Each structure stands twice: as structure tokens, then as C-alpha cells.
């Protein structure tokens, strides 16, 4: 048993509980500042439900909860909360400057469950796996509990030291929702220390979207020849979905609503009060403006946090890629046979496996990985359009090392764009068999840099 187990478990316990503590702190301050028009009880009921859901997930068989679906659920819950905050910011920034919104008890209850339960379940499963892997069940759970108590204590100390009325004066509904989205973004990762935030996943998602959008647009425009989709052209087009521009564009997309709100709060003139003498009118206007600016402060603060962490964690998908050294394979009787299982590897273990075939002095790389539906995906370690630098694995994605495009493992086997070029292969109980002709034919596309006949 190593100290790293204790550390990871403490971090996971601390993170989940501190997240709940900080949300509780801000939400209760919001309630105080809004004259206690809503109750905090639905929040507590929601937390209780999250606790029950997490406890139930602990007893579920390992296969029952699909890790990828859970990750998607976490990302989706972030997206829902972020879009809700955007809608609320937009509402507050629109034609009705004093638009008020409220939270109902049921909404609070459901939001609490949506917000906490996927992360909590993910953390429980992570702890379970950690304890089984390291054979340190008691120590793992005790450490996680220690993290929980540490975070709860810290949250209580902050609550004691803070002034809820003052804190709550910075928050109306849009800021509250944006705050939830930020918390989710910064602490929504479920893999302990490795992915404590959702930012790498969000970056991958945005980059994939921008890549697919550009690719599909070009494919539509270039039909049927794809003559321009040569490697040289993609060297330029790649700028748009490479790690720099795509990352910045996606960051700007993420910050659109907050920027709009800040613009409205700081730069738009205040509406003229209808009644009152000069000084009274000015005073009303001044109060409106200063309240607006005060409410913009947390949004500015959140923008700073997003931008800082975004750039701090930029490039993580690249640097943390799992990129195994290809194992040499040989051709026998017109085919390459790769064993499913041998003492050094298991093709169905979920990790990326690479193999190298040397043909006429040229190295051809093949990659095999298990998909979420348990089928094996067999592809060339190259795509149709980029130079054949190959792929690395990052969680539920393989990433093109050249253009940093993330491809979901579930999408492997589909041809086109930056997807790895699929190979027809047969799988029996012992081997994966790939015909040499198939490998050479597809490799030719890589060498030519374009798919003249299309890869189907």
C-alpha cells in the first residue's frame, strides 16, 4: 500500500465534499440576500438523495455502470447548467434590464441531484476501483472519509468567517447558475488527481466539434474528388482545429455569455428613472449602476478563473497521452495474426495496443483497442489526411498526435476525416487476423495523402 492511495482517496473525498460545501455556502448566502423567499430544505433533500444514489452505486456490479456513459452524463450535466446560466445571463442582459428570476423548491431539488449525483457516483466507483486495485480497502475509504471531514470543516470555518448577506449581495440567479457551472467545470473530473477538472474533456469536445464542422464543410464542398484534401492543404486547415486556435475559439465560445453580461453591466447606460428630482433621480440611477457592477464582479472573477485554468490545463490531452511502443508482428501466409491474449498483453483490456509490420523496408503500424460495446476495433495507426504520426489514448478517446483531434473510441471503425483508417479483420477465440492485401491497400491511401477512391 502506498501513500499515493491515501493521497488520491483524500483528494477525491475532499473534492466532492468541498464542492458541496462551497455550493451550500453560496446558495445559503443567496437565500439570505434574497430575503429568504425560498427555502434551503430542497437543497438538503437533494443532497440526501445524492448520498443515497452514491451509496446504491457502491453495491452495483462493476459492469453495471458504464464509465463512458457516466463521463458523458457529467459533461452533459455541466452543459445543462452552463447553458442554463447562459440563458439566465442572456435574460438579465436583454431588453428587460431588471429581469428577475427565481428558483422553485422542486427546481432546487432536481438541480442538486443533477449537479452532484454523477460526480458522486463517479467518485464512489473510482474509490472502489482504487481500493480493489491497490488491495487497500479500509485505508482507501478511511482516507476518503478524512478528506470529506476536512472539507466539511473547512466549509464550516469559511461559513463562520463570512457574512452571508454581503456574500449573497453579489449573486442573483444568473450568477448563481454560472457559479455552479464553474464549480462543475473546475471539479467535475472523476478520475481523482489525474482529471480533477472537466476542462480537458471540454477542450476535447470543442476541438472535436470544430474539427468535424470544418471537415464536414470541406467534404461537402469538395465532393466528389476531395482533391484539395491533401496533406499540404490540411497542414493549413489544421490550424483551425489544432491546439492553439481551436482552444482559443472554444474558450471564447465558453465565455460568450459571461462577456455579454459584463459588457451589459459595465458599459451599457442605466435606464432613466421615471420620477424624482435631479439628485434623487441620480441617486436611483447610481444605485442601479453600482448594483449592476457589483453583480458583474463575480462574473469577472469566474472569467478569470476559467481563463487561467483553461490555459494552465491546455495541452493536457497531448502530454498525458498513452502511446505504447508498437510490438513487431510478421506476415504469415498472406495475413497478420495477432493473439488476443498472451503473457504480456490482453487486447480486451481497454488500453491502446500498437503493432508494427515491416513490409519491403517500410514500417506499417496497426492499432487495436476494445470499444465500449466490447468489439475490437482494428485500424491503421494513421488517418486519411494527416501525416501518419499515429494516435495516443486519453481516457475514452484516441487523439491524433499530429492535429490533436480527439476521436471517441466508440466511433472507431468509421472511415473519413481524422478517424484512424479502419482495417477489415476477423476475430476468433484466439487471434485477430488481418489480410496483408487489406493492410497494403489502406496503407497506400496514407502514403498518397488522399482518399481518391474513398475508404469504405
Amino acid at each position, binding site marked *: 500500500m502506498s501513500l499515493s492511495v491515501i493521497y488520491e482517496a483524500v483528494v477525491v473525498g475532499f473534492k466532492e465534499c468541498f464542492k458541496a460545501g462551497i455550493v451550500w455556502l453560496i446558495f445559503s448566502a443567496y437565500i439570505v440576500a434574497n430575503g429568504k423567499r425560498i427555502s434551503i430544505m430542497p437543497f438538503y433533500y437533494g443532497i440526501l438523495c445524492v448520498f443515497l444514489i452514491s451509496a446504491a452505486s457502491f453495491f452495483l456490479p462493476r459492469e453495471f455502470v458504464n464509465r463512458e456513459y457516466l463521463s458523458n452524463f457529467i459533461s452533459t450535466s455541466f452543459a445543462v447548467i452552463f447553458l442554463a446560466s447562459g440563458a439566465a445571463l442572456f435574460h438579465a442582459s436583454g431588453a428587460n434590464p431588471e429581469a428577475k428570476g427565481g428558483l422553485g423548491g422542486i427546481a432546487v431539488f432536481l438541480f442538486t441531484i443533477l449537479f452532484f449525483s454523477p460526480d458522486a457516483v463517479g467518485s464512489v466507483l473510482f474509490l472502489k476501483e482504487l481500493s480493489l486495485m491497490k488491495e487497500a480497502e479500509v485505508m482507501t475509504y478511511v482516507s476518503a472519509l478524512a478528506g470529506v471531514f476536512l472539507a466539511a470543516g473547512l466549509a464550516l470555518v469559511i461559513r463562520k468567517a463570512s457574512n452571508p448577506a454581503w456574500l449573497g449581495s453579489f449573486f442573483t440567479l444568473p450568477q448563481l447558475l454560472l457559479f455552479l457551472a464553474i464549480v462543475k467545470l473546475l471539479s467535475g473530473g472523476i478520475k481523482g488527481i489525474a482529471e480533477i477538472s472537466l476542462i480537458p474533456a471540454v477542450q476535447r469536445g470543442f476541438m472535436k466539434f470544430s474539427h468535424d464542422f470544418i471537415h464536414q464543410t470541406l467534404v461537402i464542398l469538395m465532393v466528389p474528388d476531395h482533391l484539395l484534401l491533401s496533406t499540404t492543404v490540411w497542414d493549413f486547415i489544421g490550424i483551425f482545429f489544432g491546439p492553439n486556435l481551436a482552444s482559443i475559439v472554444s474558450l471564447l465560445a465558453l465565455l460568450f455569455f459571461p462577456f455579454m453580461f459584463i459588457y451589459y453591466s459595465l458599459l451599457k447606460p442605466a435606464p432613466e428613472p421615471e420620477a424624482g*428630482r*435631479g*439628485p*434623487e433621480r*441620480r*441617486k436611483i*440611477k*447610481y444605485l442601479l*449602476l453600482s448594483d449592476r457592477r457589483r453583480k458583474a464582479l463575480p462574473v469577472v472573477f469566474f472569467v478569470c478563473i476559467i481563463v487561467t485554468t483553461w490555459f494552465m490545463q491546455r495541452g493536457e490531452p497531448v502530454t498525458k497521452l498513452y502511446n505504447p511502443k508498437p510490438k513487431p508482428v510478421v506476415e504469415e501466409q498472406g495475413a497478420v495474426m495477432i493473439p488476443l491474449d498472451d503473457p504480456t498483453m490482453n487486447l480486451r483490456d481497454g488500453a491502446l495496443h500498437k503493432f508494427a509490420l515491416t513490409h519491403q523496408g517500410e514500417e506499417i503500424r496497426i492499432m487495436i483497442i476494445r470499444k465500449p460495446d466490447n468489439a475490437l476495433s482494428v485500424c491503421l495507426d494513421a488517418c486519411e489526411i494527416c501525416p501518419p504520426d499515429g494516435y495516443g489514448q486519453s481516457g475514452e478517446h484516441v487523439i491524433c498526435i499530429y492535429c490533436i483531434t480527439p476521436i471517441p473510441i466508440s466511433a472507431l471503425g468509421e472511415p473519413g476525416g481524422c478517424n484512424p483508417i479502419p482495417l477489415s479483420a476477423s476475430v476468433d477465440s484466439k487471434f485477430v487476423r488481418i489480410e496483408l492485401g487489406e493492410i497494403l491497400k489502406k496503407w497506400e491511401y496514407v502514403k498518397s495523402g488522399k482518399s481518391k477512391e474513398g475508404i469504405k
Partner: protein
Amino acid sequence: MSFIVLRDVIKEYKTAHALRGVSMEVEKGQWLNIVGPSGSGKSTLLNIIGGLDSASSGEVIIDSTNLGGLSENDMAVFRREKIGFIFQQSHLIPYLTAVENVMLAQYFHSMADEQEAVDALARVGLGHRLKHRPSQLSGGEQQRVCIARALINSPEILLADEPTGNLDRENTKVILELLKKIHSEEHFTIILVTHDPFVSQWGQRVLTMEDGKIKCDEFICYL
């Protein structure tokens, strides 16, 4: 209760007594002139009423607020909301224009509003001198800017300490006429300190001070 009430107000300095038990009441909307020789305690009394100075003992109650119980911040708010000041020297910011000087008072009250400041200057007859700096204005014009600045936040009390002390008779009359006109329109309370017998006749009441005490208090005809 009267709008301004002073009860046995004493102001002592280390070696001198500026006020020796002053008690008086002023009704809302009244124009009171305080006269007396130099060193009689006129300006000290004005500064205590305006919250610029504090009494050594006694009570100063304005609009039911006892100034002795106010913190420094509350006193600042009180001055901002209730009092307008005019002094013998204009104390205009030399590098700001007339309209900017008035806007500065708005800014410290709440926020600046140029159109309102322009209207205020037009009201005191300076609509054509908006963009002039103090050095480009005559003494009378500077004092009119001060009146606009003092009244821009609609104070309930205007305190004027020798407002015409630097002016000739003609300009003095212009200023007093202006004050009279605005006072009759807005009915705020004026307490004006002067040693000029001509100026002291431009009010409803004259309070004569001598050696830190009220010597005489008489109601006069509003000229």
C-alpha cells in the same frame, strides 16, 4: 420640534472659548443671517451646524438627528445629503471648467449628469460660461458657480460664510438677488454669516453674536 435646534453649545480650544453656551432654533425654510465682529464665533457656529466641526459640549439637532451621535461616515452622508456650502473664497477647482466643477459635486453625491449641471448654471445666469475655467470668470461669476454647485444636490440647508466678502456692492446685490429668488422657489433653509450690515438685511431673521454668545435675535422684514 424646530428644524435646527442648538442647546447650550460650547466650543473650546486650548486657550480660547469660541462659543460659550449658544442655544437657538431655526425653522425649516427660514433665512437666518448671523452677524457680529471678527472672533465672535459666527463661523465656528456655522461649521458646527454644517458638521465640519464638532461642539465641545451641548446638543446640535438637525431634522431630528443629533449630530453628536453620528459616526464619521454618517456625518459625511449627512453633509452630502442635507447641506450645501458657500464660502468667501470660491474653492473652485482651477483646472476644471464651470460645468465640471458643478459635476464634481454631483459625482461626490451620486453620479455626474452634465445636462443637469448645465441647467443649474443657466439658472444662475452662466449658461454662456459653461466651458470657462475659474480664472476666466469674474469674482461674481465664480460665486454664482459656487451657488450652482452648492444647490445642485438640493440640500435642505444652505450655509454661506461671508459669500459676498470678496465682491463689490453691485455683485453683492446680484448674488443676494439670486439667492432670494432661488430661496423663494425652493424654500430651503439659509444660514448666512456676514459682517456687512447691507447683507444682513437680506433675510428674515438676524442673530447678532459677540464673544461666543448670542447678543441679539430679531426678526426682520424680508427685503
